[in-house]
């Protein structure tokens, strides 16, 4: 009985593991994801300027990437 219960639980768990496999958007459903506002950095130039200023003003070497502190003028 105990072994049967374990086997049943194992089967149920393995079946449930694949339960979310079909939830990913299909190739033709990525229109909204492809919008610029969905990008990690919607404006890469603006993001680079902000990061440069942050590194400089905080003297935070290696904060987001490895960079030197200082006046932010280079």
């Amino acid at each position: 009985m105990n072994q049967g219960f374990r086997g049943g639980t194992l089967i149920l768990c393995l079946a449930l593991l694949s339960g979310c496999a079909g939830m990913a958007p299909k190739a033709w459903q990525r229109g909204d994801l492809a919008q610029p506002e969905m990008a990690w950095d919607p404006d890469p130039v603006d993001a680079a300027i902000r990061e440069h200023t942050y590194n400089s003003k905080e003297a935070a070497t290696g904060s987001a990437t490895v960079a030197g502190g200082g006046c932010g003028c280079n």
Partner: protein
Amino acid sequence: MNRVSAALAATIAWGLPLLAGAVEPKQPAPSFPALEAQRGKVVLVDFWASWCGPCRQALPAYEALRKDYGARGFEVIAVDVDQHPLDGEAALRQLHLSYPQVADAQGSIAEAYAVAGMPASYLLDRHGVVRSMHVGFEQEDIEPLRKTVAQLLEEK
């Protein structure tokens, strides 16, 4: 051991519907009204969307191909899978295409063809059998496609 096998079988059975309906070469292509209307022709079914850059490059290239081979029985059907159809219509106004357009906002045709990436194109022979499939688009893809189309047009 038997239980492990049973568990694996259950998992595979659970996932099988995800693979159902995949289109393969040498198999009849799933039918839809615009395709039926082109019966007897060599047809390129192209799935595209306005948000997909390579798709928008492919459409004019297929227009040129159709211009060359249309008279011999070659046709292109562009299936727009934009979930917001107005986006697709706006793109089409700029492209001035002469071949048939089909809107598939619900993705039912794309589902039937099990489109795996964008753009996806399926080349069908005169009998509606899938002869080749391609995902993605680069300008270098046109020449091999041109050769295959010419080859299929020779077949009866």
